């Protein structure tokens, strides 16, 4: 009996101490880990969208809630201290699971907005087929595209799908449309968050 109690006690103590230590370390590193993750996972996509900026969008990020109260991490792009665009991540259904697309919006001072471009953050598409949505031929179609009528040619729009990768292309377009919907909900909050 004594031995059994001792076994339970020792194992619980070791597990408890380990849990406590790990929770402490996790707390201490959480912020740095988040920053590193954003820099290495979302950073490259941001660089593809905004090539001519002089701030660090990952560092200047902010959380903005949409109409449903869901928070989005929004990355501002600045040139000469002026806000030229914002970008945030949106998801669509790809061929191999969720397709993460960073969607950039050019914020025009005259009140008219357009897409600044897209970049792929996470995907599990078929190598050599679906993965071609990361190539310029597909991505560049979104640069300077107006915010309405983003659709594939088969759906009456003007975006040419990657041949053989209809599912991946549809997923990307769906992610962009989802992002546009979110953008329209949060665009009024952008000046108060990032200035102009």
């Amino acid at each position, binding site marked *: 009996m004594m031995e059994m109690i001792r076994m339970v006690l020792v194992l619980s103590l*070791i597990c408890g101490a380990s849990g406590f*230590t790990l929770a402490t370390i996790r707390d201490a590193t959480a912020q*740095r880990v988040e920053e590193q993750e954003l820099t290495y996972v979302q950073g490259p996509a941001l660089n593809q969208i905004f090539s001519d900026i002089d701030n660090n969008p990952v560092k200047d990020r902010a959380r903005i809630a949409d109409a449903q109260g869901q928070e989005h991490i929004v990355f501002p792009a600045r040139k000469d201290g002026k806000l030229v665009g914002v970008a945030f991540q949106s998801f669509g259904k790809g061929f191999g699971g969720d397709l993460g697309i960073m969607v950039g919006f050019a914020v025009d001072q005259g009140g008219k907005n357009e897409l600044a471009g897209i970049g792929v953050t996470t995907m599990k598409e078929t190598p050599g087929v679906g993965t071609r949505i990361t190539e310029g031929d597909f991505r560049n179609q979104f640069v300077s595209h107006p915010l309405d009528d983003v659709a594939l040619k088969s759906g009456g729009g003007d975006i040419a799908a990657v041949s053989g990768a209809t599912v991946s292309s549809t997923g990307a377009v769906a992610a962009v449309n989802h992002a546009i919907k979110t953008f329209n909900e949060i665009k009024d909050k952008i000046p108060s968050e990032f200035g102009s």
Partner: protein
Amino acid sequence: MSTLWKEFSKGLWRDLPPFRLVLGLCPVLAVTKTADNGLGMGLAVIFVLTLSNVFVSLLRNIIPSKVRIACFIVIAASLVVCVELLMQAFAYPLYQQLGIFVPLIVVNCIILGRAEAFASKNTVLMSTADGLGLGIGFALSLTFLGALRETFGYGTLFGKSVMWSGFEPFTFMIEAPGAFVCLGLVLAAMNALTNWQRGVKGLEAVEGPKHDCKACGMCNTPLK
């Protein structure tokens, strides 16, 4: 002092984990595409192995023997999660490269093997020396294998070009089969070296295991 040095140095040659004990081969084969990856993985293993030896040795008198394996695994797992968090925070590209193999250090047989065979029976100081020695041996082996494969597979070493211009990389070396072939060649070289050393000392050469029908019994061939 001399025993301390003996415990430390045995991991560097006599009990060199992947090439002598042939233990913990999963990361050895999987992450040694480049010398950088091998070194990174090796450093993570040094950290986990040394500290797991220290904690197991510290707690060896209060851990009941019936639940000792569970205790060892909890200790090793906590240390591995520590390494994973620290790597995410300070070396994210390395973390992306090593991927699943960082959490898999938990089930690396060297960690549990040293806890069971050495740390649970020896003092903290001895266990530290043992863990450090085997860990460093493991890291050096991984870096060596990584350097070999990177040199021939990419024509670079630690990311810097080392081969002549116009060198056509053997892509085979950085694929999974290349890992097996490299490991096999290194093991063969180690055995040849051992036998040569024994020859110099005037000892008889060690032969490999003899496979005769007694060891197998799969077919009905009569025994010689």
